[in-house]
């Protein structure tokens, strides 16, 4: 192989201009693709981090069937021991327990159906951005008997900090639930559908209200790194067995996921086109190279070099060329990505406003992740192998007698 590498390298030096042009085209494609992906995925990474860390999380555990029918038939008991047993993977950063249900909230004349989230304040605040959204009053204490209201709901019910909220609902096992809760604080939630109907209680208070001692409906799994999502989901699902459902945000927030897919997909179509052009470029270079060297390849066959070895030589040349382009492309893209990773592009105009409404910083940090950078390299190598198919066939079909008659 050393011999082939040497020959391949020198052959690339024969037509420096063509080698440079082909390498440059691969370089450009890899550079463009990597930087494009870095921003494209960076936008989504940023968006998902914000959206998912406001409530849903990347991953949730429920009793099997809860996602379909959100009621108390699908709760599960929970304590510290079972929690410890669930730390199956070091990719799990924290487990955030919740008891979620519905209730009818009222105050004075006004009544409204609401979502009640029983939370563990310490764990919840460590996971979500909730404390940053406090508009009035204070957050719930661990053993708090009071409630935290979303802003629009508070406005609708005409409640202020210190007032009392009345809620009635159906509790665990068909019991009826009723309770009064002093309003401790008001939070401004970014998404209107949440801001219209959220009531936070502490977990003990919620359990008491619903007579659901020890029960949970939801366990949010916080990950150290979102890229381990599918892996961790698989592990958890395996550990927990069929009594539980382990759902990723893709299954819970299906609309958002559809948007994600179609947006990222359109990016791939663009890249696909770009790579197709590069693939044809490599193919063209190869065919020219073969044509110019027909006589030489004829001599090589005549003196006893097997076609297979000639094919290896030609392939080595092109793969070397592709590698050169890939490495240079990544080398060129890295500083750009690094810069924009640390100095995010700041948006202005409507886009920025929309993002601010959703509680996000209006900036796009470039995503720096070995995974997709690596994929660009693999894509170019695959293309190179595809571009090699026909040239290799024509090497095998080369007749030395014809090649030598010039």
């Amino acid at each position: 192989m050393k011999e082939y590498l040497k020959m391949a390298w020198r052959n690339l030096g024969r037509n420096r201009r063509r080698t440079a042009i082909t390498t440059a085209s691969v370089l450009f494609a890899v550079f463009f693709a990597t930087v494009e992906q870095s921003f494209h995925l960076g936008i989504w990474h940023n968006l998902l981090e914000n959206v998912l860390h406001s409530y849903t999380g990347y991953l949730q555990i429920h009793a099997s069937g809860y996602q379909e029918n959100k009621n108390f038939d699908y709760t599960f008991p929970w304590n510290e021991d079972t929690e410890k047993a669930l730390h199956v993977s070091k990719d799990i950063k924290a487990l955030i327990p919740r008891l979620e249900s519905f209730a009818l909230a009222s105050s004075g004349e006004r009544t409204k159906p609401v979502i009640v989230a029983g939370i563990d304040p310490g764990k919840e605040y460590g996971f979500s951005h909730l404390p940053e959204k406090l508009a009035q009053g204070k957050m719930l204490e661990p053993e708090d008997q009071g409630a935290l209201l979303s802003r629009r709901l508070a406005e609708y019910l005409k409640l202020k900090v210190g007032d009392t909220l009345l809620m009635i609902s159906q509790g665990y096992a068909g019991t009826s639930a009723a309770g009064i809760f002093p309003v401790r604080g008001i939070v401004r939630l970014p998404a209107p559908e949440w801001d219209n109907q959220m009531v936070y209680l502490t977990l003990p208070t919620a359990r008491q209200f619903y007579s659901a001692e020890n029960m949970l409906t939801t366990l949010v799994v916080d990950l150290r790194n979102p890229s381990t999502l599918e892996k961790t989901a698989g592990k958890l699902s395996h550990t927990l067995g069929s009594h539980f459902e382990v759902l990723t945000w893709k299954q819970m927030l299906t609309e958002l996921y559809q948007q994600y897919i179609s947006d990222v997909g359109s990016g791939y179509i663009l890249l696909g086109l770009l790579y197709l052009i590069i693939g044809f470029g490599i193919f063209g270079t190869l065919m020219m190279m073969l044509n110019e060297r027909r006589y030489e390849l004829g001599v090589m066959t005549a003196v006893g070099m097997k076609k297979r070895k000639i094919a290896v030589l030609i392939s080595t040349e092109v793969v070397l060329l592709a590698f050169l382009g890939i490495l240079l492309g990544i080398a060129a893209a890295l500083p750009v990505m690094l810069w924009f990773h640390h100095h995010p592009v700041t948006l202005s105009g409507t886009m920025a406003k929309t993002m601010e409404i959703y509680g996000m910083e209006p900036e796009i940090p470039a995503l720096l992740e070995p995974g997709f950078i690596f994929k660009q390299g693999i894509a170019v190598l695959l293309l190179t192998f595809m571009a090699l198919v026909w040239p290799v066939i024509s090497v095998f079909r080369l007749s030395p007698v014809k090649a030598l008659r010039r």
Partner: protein
Amino acid sequence: MEIISLKNLTKTYREDSIEVTAVSDITLSFAEGEFTAIVGPSGSGKTTLLNLIGGLDAPTSGEIVVNGTNLARLSSSQLTDFRLWNVGFVFQAYNLIPVLTARENIEFIMHLQNKPVHERRKRASELLQAVGLADRAKSRPSKLSGGQQQRVAVARALAPRPRFILADEPTANLDSHSAENLLEMMEKLNREENITFIFSTHDPRVMKKARRIITLEDGKVLRDEQMHK
């Protein structure tokens, strides 16, 4: 001792439905140690005949037996190996791999044979010495004169210690002085090392050096003469 035997050898090419019989019913044999010229005008079938003997082309009919091996029995990959181990080829021009130096060109053949490095080194040095180019070992073909390139080609052809060397108009692109030099070198190798040479030419001065001259015309053997010196 007979090393090559051709029986009723015919090769017909078909190009755009026109049939050309390049070699027509040739029966010949060659012995070890020969120094033979194949002569004849352009298009008389010299190249085709040499290609057939060397296992580079397959006959339309007839038989080629080299060192007791009937070439018709070999697959195309076996023929490649046959050429690698038994035949030394020298063509009219551009014999060498341009990206390899003179020494590397010679070693390349032995590399294909998986010979160990030290053996390759040693043999390449010997051969460069033998063709008088020890001082040009590190030159690429483009830095060598036509005559020097042909000498390296002969050295490369000799590298695997083949039974014979087939040279197709090796002097055609050389000036008369270089041509003479090349022929003298080949003759010396033939005399001192008993290497069999079969070469084609239409240069009378080259012909003169041969000990046997086979004249072709329209793919047939017109004359087969032993020259007595």
